[in-house]
């Protein structure tokens, strides 16, 4: 397992992408799969930065772990913030479709993209924070 810890700030999310690229390349994931994972993992980090504890509350860190498995790779993004809502049922279709332009939602696309780009997405919240667990299967 490979672990990375970054300050909970948007300026460091690109480092998570660079690290993911290295790990996933070594596991021989395709270019497309790596691109998909880059977006999904960044979205999980965005949520951690946006909903984690603020600097005033003592600041926080984001832990990212990359776990190669037999099936592919599992990436866990953990922060010490409060839980955020995860409603899988509402994410079945593209969020920006069949609505008037003026009614289009500006936010809330992060979880949808994670669901669309990964094979499994789990969100676990507890007293110690929130964990987003992302799994991608290796393609044949």
């Amino acid at each position, binding site marked *: 397992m490979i672990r990375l810890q970054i300050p909970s700030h*948007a*300026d460091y*999310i*690109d*480092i998570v*992408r*660079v690290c993911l*690229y*290295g790990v996933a390349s070594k596991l021989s994931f395709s270019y497309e799969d790596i*691109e998909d994972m*880059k*977006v999904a993992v*960044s*979205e999980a980090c*965005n949520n951690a*930065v*946006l909903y984690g504890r603020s600097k005033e509350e003592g600041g926080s860190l984001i832990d990212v772990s990359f776990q190669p498995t037999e099936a592919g790779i599992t990436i866990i993004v953990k922060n010490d913030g409060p839980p955020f809502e995860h409603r899988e049922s509402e994410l079945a*279709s*593209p*969020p*920006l*479709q069949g609505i008037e*332009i*003026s009614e*289009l*939602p*500006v*936010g809330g*696309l*992060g979880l*949808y*993209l994670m669901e*669309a*780009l990964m094979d499994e997405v789990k969100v676990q919240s507890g007293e110690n924070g929130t964990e987003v667990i992302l799994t991608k299967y290796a393609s044949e």
Partner: protein
Amino acid sequence: MKSQQFQIDQKETSDSYVISLGGELDLSVVTQLRSALEPVMERADLNLVLNLRELTYIDSTGIGIIVSILKYRDGINAPFAVKEIPPSIQRLFDLTGISGYLAEGTDK
């Protein structure tokens, strides 16, 4: 993989205002992009164009900004277009559904 710095290049012509983006558009540069857009959002006399040719990465916050430009320009009946979308970014536009609105544009 090298992380590419986000870049904004702006050019005004007689009838349009072209903002070309390069590098990685993510949460860390949202404020930078918003301030670049602010002075031109109101310009209904100009065709606002976002050129994405050099963009290597976009996340949901970047897509959110494009949605907000689309809504604003549509609201004031001003033209807005997104051009030269790289395939990897087009894929995310298709997944979220925003491509359907970008094809239509607001220039009616």
